């Protein structure tokens, strides 16, 4: 526990590096010819990175079976929210200088801003309900359903980036590919679960276990990496159709 607290502190400090970097650049007047653009780009980039990191916690936990990874998810998600707040503030303050009319027009007329703004708004309820008290008040299930908004928000974030570049789509497409991988993992898990439910309605739990883990699964695969363990599971699954009615 103590060990985890230390790791948490270290990760917290690491998450502040992008902000520190910008702050130092601004302080030493070292942000190049167009500092406002640099600040906008950087806070936007780190919002996307933190969203992707947050979304990778669950898949990583499932793959590595390191359950304690979940303890960092809230903090990482809140850092995504922190950077999106900075990004939004940069836009309304430094870029538009509180020109409400211009901002309103932008949000309505410019699809990339509409999408980006929506992604920001979608994250607000998630940040507000991130406390232990709110989880209890909502109930785990409802809380979880609400927090699936992060998928929409992240998709919106990537689209926002994709729609604002002039010609070079490389970077937004990289973010898009990582996001697709992370969402794809969830779809795969979800598809598998529905199959499990179907199976469960016909068979005994012991059959289910065999179906899930395979008949001849070695119990202590220390020499195997988590990844090859996963592969092993897949092979076991591939063999199941033979024994299936």
């Amino acid at each position, binding site marked *: 526990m103590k060990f985890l607290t230390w790791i948490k502190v270290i990760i917290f400090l690491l998450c502040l590096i992008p902000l520190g970097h910008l702050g130092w650049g601004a302080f030493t007047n070292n942000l*190049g010819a167009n500092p406002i653009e640099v600040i906008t780009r950087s806070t936007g980039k780190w919002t996307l990175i933190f969203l992707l990191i947050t979304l990778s916690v669950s898949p990583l936990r499932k793959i590595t079976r390191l359950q304690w990874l979940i303890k960092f998810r809230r903090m990482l998600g809140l850092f995504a929210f922190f950077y999106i707040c900075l990004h939004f503030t940069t836009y309304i303050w430094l870029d538009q200088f509180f020109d409400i009319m*211009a901002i309103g027009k932008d949000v309505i007329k410019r699809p990339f801003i509409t999408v980006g703004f929506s992604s920001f708004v979608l994250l607000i309820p998630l940040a507000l309900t991130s406390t232990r008290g709110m989880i209890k008040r909502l109930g785990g299930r409802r809380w979880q359903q609400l927090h699936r908004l992060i998928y929409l928000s992240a998709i919106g974030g990537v689209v926002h980036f994709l729609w604002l570049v002039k010609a070079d789509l490389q970077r937004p497409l990289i973010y898009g590919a990582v996001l697709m991988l992370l969402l794809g993992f969830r779809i795969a898990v979800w598809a598998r679960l529905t199959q499990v439910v179907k199976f469960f309605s016909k068979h005994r739990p012991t059959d289910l276990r065999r179906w899930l883990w395979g008949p001849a699964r070695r119990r202590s695969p220390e020499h195997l990496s988590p990844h090859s363990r996963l592969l092993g599971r897949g092979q076991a699954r591939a063999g199941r159709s033979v024994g299936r009615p």
Partner: protein
Amino acid sequence: MLIKKPSDIKGSEITDKETYLNRRRFLIETSAAAAAVATGFVFPGHLGDSGEAHAGTKLDGVRKSPLSTGEKKTPFKDITNYNNFYEFGTDKYSPAKKSKSLITRPWTVAVEGEISRPKVYDVDELIKLSPLEERIYRLRCVEGWSMVIPWVGYPLNALIKVVEPTSKAKYLEFVTLYDPKQMPGQRRGVLDWPYVEGLRMDEAMNPLAILAVGLYGAVLPNQNGAPIRLVVPWKYGFKSIKSIVRIRFVEKQPKTAWEKAAPNEYGFYSNVNPEVDHPRWSQARERRIGEFFKRKTLMFNGYADHVAHLYKGMDLKIHF
């Protein structure tokens, strides 16, 4: 956070650019001479020539022009470190770092097409075609930022008069060098290389349109389009094509690189126009590099008196 910290070096203590560059040239040339002596090789004329084409070498006999603006010039550092030159990467800070690989001498510019006197010019010959002038122009990028840049060059119409266009010459097509070895950005298909731009003949004849070979009184740095580039100050920056190797006089309107990339966003004319927005963002205002507040964008980038007549009767919403 954006308030500039006063520099702790007094202005009087800063070595002026010329002295600094002379010192550098001295160091380079003496060390080259020392190396030549040490190795026993001396290339005749080499030392004398080496300075001529180098970025930063002072250009002599540059005249002032009444077409220059009196606005505060953007610092040299910003003009040479914040560039859109996709041939050296799509990041604005990469051309300054990556353009050293561009070899600007020897360099030729083929002038061809519907003209009586086609010719492949050596760039040093082309530079001497007409007296050099300083033209301090506003530059407005389609992305919404602007600068004030003291170019050195001469009117494009000086070249046009020399090559004698035929009656078929209605447009000019400009082409940038294509060489992925020198221009690493061309290894990725971000645009349909080589970069192509175009002007209508009357636009090209307008005294504001220049061929630029210098910046701040000295030879153009690579990242700004060395050795020779176009500057058309009433149009968005991307119209001012860099590192030109071919100028062709044609009958039909050329297809430009940006038109090919996104025809609904970048038109052939691309005149600066605060009333016609880019499909994805507003063009009403711009951020002048070095300023905190955005300023209003001016029709034809403030050059309406000189160029508005070229577009009389044209719907600029259609011909954007």
